[in-house]
């Protein structure tokens, strides 16, 4: 008996592995669920493949559709909907990116609250009423957002960088659209977008919180049941590599120049995913301890932030190095950043750096799933991007045996230092 108890306690003390439950609803929505019992709350994320890469020529359509969910349903108006969520302390939000349009609910999990919050959430998602007065208002709000982005050099730079790296791909345009595209979008467009993409077969439901699996199944069923079955959206074409270097400068009356340097990136099922992940972590993805930050900030004091990342989207995202420095130092910083990348590609990382990078990822892996909100994000990613269910539990195993040569080879295969987008936004010197 003693032996058994000891054995059980060893299991619970071992590395935190999530017990991910998964199933598909009768309507075809994919569901991932983790039960956590310590806080009396539940998080739900509905991830539809309905975001700006589905805009077609109508840039901003997906964002507007997402913004109007919650303004009216077939039974309730906007104020009634807001009151319904607020009167039970539930939080509803919508967020539309390039791949995913996400509708989320955070609610207390006790029965009487949960029942009400689910009912209104389901109604908002499954029985929307798209009305002209709300569209008119949200268009005006979008035009204000466009202006707000025009006065931020960081936003101007991000927008221009995507345009250059993604070219004609549906990832290229800004998700909020432009004045011209926004003005032409109609209620009919929103309805069509909703009918086509907000459907069960195009949905991944993630649930994390203090409910049983039986309850989670009922919840997923309730939401999915109200949706049209529909069809899964066809994958977008893959982003293609750049043909040549693009040097772009955009004049902007700012004290700093924002430098963005990079190219096409990867998705999460890329064969070199793990060596690229580890490599980027060491190169520019781990804050002040990364190589890029060390060269730009620690050694030279050129910038407050200097980092790199892979955006890891469905059809290949982007790879980007990013920093900001006063206008007169922009060229110097650019030269150092490119040389640092070149060096990283052409000579293997030293053993200590490699080991440090692995130790950081592996030793801190428990932090990745330390909150319900973190777990919810991972369930959404695993489901939406078709990652294996052991994505998290095998992550450490995937990282630990990667060699310096593996990292170098992976970067060499992907990054073409002679075909980069080199973008600067700032005052010309």
């Amino acid at each position, binding site marked *: 008996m003693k032996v058994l108890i000891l054995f059980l306690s060893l299991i619970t003390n071992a590395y935190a592995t999530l017990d991910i439950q998964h199933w598909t609803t009768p309507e075809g929505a994919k569901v991932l669920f983790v039960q956590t019992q310590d806080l009396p709350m539940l998080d739900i994320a509905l991830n539809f493949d309905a975001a700006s890469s589905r805009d077609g020529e109508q840039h901003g359509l997906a964002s507007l559709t997402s913004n109007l969910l919650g303004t009216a349903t077939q039974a309730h108006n906007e104020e009634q909907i807001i009151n319904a969520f607020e009167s039970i302390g539930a939080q509803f939000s919508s967020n539309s990116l390039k791949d995913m349009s996400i509708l989320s609910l955070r609610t207390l999990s006790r029965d009487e609250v949960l029942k009400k919050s689910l009912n209104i959430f389901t109604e908002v998602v499954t029985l929307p009423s798209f009305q002209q007065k709300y569209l008119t208002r949200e268009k*005006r709000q979008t035009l204000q957002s466009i202006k707000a982005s025009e006065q931020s050099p960081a936003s101007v730079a991000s927008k221009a960088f995507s345009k250059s790296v993604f070219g004609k791909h549906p990832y290229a345009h800004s998700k909020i659209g432009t004045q011209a595209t926004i003005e032409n979008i109609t209620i009919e467009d929103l309805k069509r977008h909703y009918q086509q993409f907000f459907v069960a077969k195009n949905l991944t439901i993630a649930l994390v919180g203090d409910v049983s699996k039986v309850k989670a199944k009922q919840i997923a069923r309730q939401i999915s049941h109200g949706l049209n079955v529909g069809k899964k959206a066809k994958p977008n074409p893959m982003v293609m590599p750049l043909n040549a270097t693009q040097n772009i400068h955009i004049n902007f009356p700012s004290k700093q120049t924002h430098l963005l340097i990079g190219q096409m990136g990867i998705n999460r099922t890329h064969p070199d995913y793990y060596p690229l992940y580890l490599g980027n972590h060491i190169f520019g993805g781990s804050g002040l301890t990364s190589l890029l930050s060390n060269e730009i900030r620690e050694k030279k004091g050129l910038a*407050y932030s200097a980092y790199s990342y892979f955006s890891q989207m469905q059809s290949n995202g982007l790879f980007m190095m990013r920093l900001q420095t006063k206008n007169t130092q922009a060229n110097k910083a650019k030269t150092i950043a490119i040389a640092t990348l070149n060096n990283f590609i052409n000579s293997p990382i030293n053993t200590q750096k490699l080991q440090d990078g692995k130790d950081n*990822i592996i030793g801190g892996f428990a932090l990745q799933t330390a909150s319900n909100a973190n777990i919810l994000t991972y369930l959404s990613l695993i489901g939406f991007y078709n990652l294996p269910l052991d994505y998290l539990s095998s992550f450490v195993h995937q990282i630990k045996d990667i060699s310096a040569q593996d990292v170098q080879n992976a970067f060499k295969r992907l990054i073409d230092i002679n075909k980069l987008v080199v973008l600067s936004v700032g005052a010309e010197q």
Partner: protein
Amino acid sequence: MKNLILLSFAFFFSAFACAIELEKHNITQTTLDNGLKIIIKTDKRAPVFISQLWYRVGASDESRPNTGISHMLEHMMFKGTRDYKVGEFSKIIARNGGNDNAFTSKDYTAYYQKMHKSKLALAIKMEADRMRHLQLSNDEFEKERQVVIEERRLRIEDNPNAQVYEHLKLISFDKNGAYHAPIIGFQADIESYHLHDLRTWYEKYYAPNNASLVVVGDVDPAEVIVLARQYFGGYKVNPNITNVDNPSIAQTSNTRVLKLKAQLPFYILSFSVPSLKTTDNTHNAYALDMLAYVLDNGLSKALIREQQIASSIGVEYRLYDKYNTLFTLSFIPVKGVSNEAVLSAIKSKITELIQNPDLIKDELVRIKTQLEAEFVFEQDHISTQSYYLGMLSAIGLSVETLFSYVDKMNAISANDVAQAAKQYLNFSQANSVELIPQGIK
């Protein structure tokens, strides 16, 4: 005699009740002989912890020509000690699976590490080391000064709305008191302090009796205390920290117009108000906090959704500032609508509230329900928990403040909210900053 006994009994009883209350929230508190406060909250949901060290020093302790020096010192705290070379602090934490950072605000400077629970001793040992053994070098300082100037350009100078906030503080508080100067400092000051200024600041404020260690996560409180005693216990009290108060000095009826390279207008108003710490009646502070929620919801509904004359509304009250603070109202008018039109709509909503508090009764019930739910939601992140605990300790409020918040807010009536609006939202005394966009060419 009888009175005395009753009094002491009551005191004993309430202390006991507090202990039970804190136990319910898994809180352990103690203070070392050298004055270091320790607050631990156990949360065993994941095998991780966050350890934060909070110093009771920040921008509100500064004056020219040393504005921003708390923040500058925060940057230099990563530049090596007697035992660890430049940059090694973060490297060692990272190598051990952790991530670390720091932040500076008006009333505090705080450092933290988030790690697997097996690394608790390392985090406490290294944080303790840099409390007393920082080595400041001129070479590192000169580079870091440039980094901070870049940070200022990034956060403030190339950000029109951040400039508006900076100007609001300049006109709302007298320069001889707290909260006038920006947290990051004036550029001229950042450019001019010397290494010995930083050393003086460090020697003066970085001592156990000016700090609180907050640990939240899957830890054994007894072990945290043993480790804290082991690594911080040897440090002496710094008797020179008298925690001299540097109260803020309110200025009223000041206005400023900023013409900036920007695309959108922005308007902000400030009213001088007490904080929870400075008020002589805490009920008033909670009423102000409730007023901020009521106006944020009410004005968003009226001005953004119904009248559609504003595209954004912000109402903010800093309940947890150390000194008298600001209640602010900000907005962006929609295209073609003047600031005056939005202002007048705001004023009439506030007058309506003062004259007929019953109008917000339903709203108040909903806000209270939301606050109760939010109290649960906020426990999802150990960093949110440790932030509240450390911040309260840093400004000198009890940990119980966190756990009684929902009850205190529940006690606020519609009349209290109307009374707070009447007492504090005096538009003729308000300060304002108006941004008139000049385009970006």
